[in-house]
């Protein structure tokens, strides 16, 4: 079960994930990111502070957008991950590929820097 919310702040689309992302709920995450990109946001920030768990399918969703975002020059920044979730990212070697910050402030700042 997952709940995904979107909030716009300073030209950035902030996607909040509440709950667990497993194989079935990853589809919802996929749709949300696709929508956000489709609406032409230049900065996408993902709030992971309420994310309890992410499965490999959920990670696959993030990975599948990396190339597209690089081409469109849209930075994707994640922040506020719980230790367990962060561990999942790091084991799969995603920590080096994605931009991961601790706080929302840092995330916004990083997104601004990257989008320039």
């Amino acid at each position, binding site marked *: 079960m997952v709940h995904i919310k979107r909030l716009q702040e300073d030209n950035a689309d902030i996607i909040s994930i509440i709950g667990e992302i497993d*194989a079935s709920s*990853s589809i919802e995450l*996929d749709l949300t990111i696709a929508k956000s990109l489709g609406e032409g946001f230049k900065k996408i920030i993902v709030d992971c502070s309420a994310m309890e768990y992410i499965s*490999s*399918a959920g*990670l*696959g*969703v993030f*990975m*599948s957008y*990396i*190339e597209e975002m690089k081409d469109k020059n849209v930075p994707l920044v994640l922040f506020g991950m719980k230790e367990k979730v962060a561990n999942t990212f790091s*084991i*799969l*070697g*995603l920590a*080096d*590929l994605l931009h991961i910050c601790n706080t929302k402030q840092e995330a916004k700042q990083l997104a601004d820097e990257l989008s320039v």
Partner: protein
Amino acid sequence: MLKSKAIIRLSFLGSIIAWLVLVFSDITVLYSEMKGLPPGVPLWLPRLMLAVFILCLFYYYRYSVDRDEGLNFTDLLWKVFATGLIATVVSLVFRLGASLLGTTKLASNILFTDFIYQINLALFISFLIAAYTSWKRLILYQKSKWLIRTWAVFVVCLFIVLIYDSLQIAIPEPLTTIILVVIGLLVFILSANMRWVAYLNFKQKWTCLLLLLLSFFYLGYFIYTVSKLSESINAQSPSFSGFNSHIFNLCLLSFVIVYSVFSFLVILFNLPTSSVFEQKLEEVVNFQRISQSIQTEQNEESVYNILLESSVSSVFADAAWLEIQSATDGHKLFTFKITERESKDIRDYLRSHNIKGALDQSSDRTKNLSRHLASVKGSRFRSLVAFPITVKGETIGTLALLKELPEGFNKEMTRIVSTFANQAGISIENFRLMEEAFQTERYKEELKIAKTVQKSLLPTSLESAPDFEISAFAESADEVGGDYYDTLRINDHQVALIIADVSGKGTTAAFHMSQMKGIFHSLAQQELDPKEFMDRANRALMFCLERGSFISATYFVVDSVTKIIRYSRAGHCPVLYFKAREGTTGYLKDKGTALGMVRSKDYCKLVETNEINYAPGDIMVLYTDGITEAKNQRSEEFDYTRLEAALKEVTDKTAEEIEKHIIQRLYEFSGTSEINDDYTSMTIKFK
């Protein structure tokens, strides 16, 4: 079966013999009486023989008619009629013969008359007993305990009368009267059992009436013939006991006549209402057809057709149409005696005049729309009712019935059709559910195949070397996962090991796993550096994996000469390593991104080769995330710490024992033997 056939033959033979004896003795008695001689045979013989004849016939019909389950009501009446016909024809032939003889001496001879009388009597009695047996079946149709008892009493009474008749026992007058009254009462009570009439349809009723009417004719003919003959004999020989003096025969005759008359009248008065009964029966049959159509028919279309047909025939509609609106198949129209154009005109008219609830599919109530039809130009119809067809609370179509008469549908009719429409909705719902179940079944079957494929991809035997031993374990949940492990000997001193986890589940996971196996077997033989192995594997998988899929893996090359393990981790769970010399355990958390995550040449920067020296007693535990993420009832994870702890407990054991211990700890932790993920592990113990 053979027994009853034997009884039929035996009783028939018995009756013929009895009759021959009867004729012979009766003529002898009569002759001796005429001549005033003492009779050569006992006087009671003819009477006794008559009783024997009757009993034999009774058994004959009992076994030939009563036991035949295949006979229906009209068949029974037909049997009576046929017996009567044969009897009458035979009697008429003798009458013709007698009239041909004219007024010769023979014709007026009393003995000849007696002979003719006996023939007629035998025919008459056999006809009566045939009728009696058939009536019995009709009366005892839908029997009750009480009815069976009454019938038994009736039979006993008849038997008593028969004995009385044949033995001429002197019974006091009042008792005879009582018995006769009882028999009379029983005849009337039994004759009230006419339930079978209700089951006849209109045509059968007419047939029955005709058959009964003809039977009356035979009865009348025989009564006339027999009484006439017995009178003429009686005139010459006063002591001759005629038909009238035989009480049993009279009882039997009155029973047959009373029941026939009752049946005739009941059938006659039931004629006008039989169409209603038939229609009710047809409704039931139609209803059954709709509900069973799913089992017998193969598609929804036939359900619609049956619904249309049944509704039209139940309410005598002049025309009808069935409009089905479905998201998948689009718009469908089934018509009955109405052109699509006509139906379209009516629908368009109703729509254009904004008549709500007519064929409006959102309407959940059936409405009588007749008053609107009068204003539709060029339409021959004056009555219209429409019914929604709902499946799972959603209206999928409309059934419209039309009549040329104004106010053509009554409440009863609308009630029936709405029941039909509901049942059709249920049938279609069932049909769809069945279809769904079928799909699920197919999906399950597919999974089963995928699981077999996946199992067959795992190695049946693992490499071994003098300085290490390997043990592996794999158990998967119902869903197919994509865990893979394998070993391959590169050369005499190097062995390659791999453990991998394909993202996703099901058939695709099994498919990707087979690709991984292919890659491992082709690349490992080339003696590549582990990092190079990963880079090439990534390049190979780049175009095979669909978007969002990836494979995490760790690849090892164990060199038994240098005692070095060279490995590369690509996003897979860190290896648990036990160093025997220091007695410590730890996870090898090196850098590395899963295969398929980055689909470019940059990938080589994201993986690296690491080295570790091994010594005897060292243990390496490879596993997939199913193990660390296994949850207990409080949804805590097994996690790295518990895995490490489990290994520490058994570091001095063999690879196989260590593995068993870890799995046992895992099951203890999860508290159930049912697993919800794949458990895969490979344990290597160095010697």
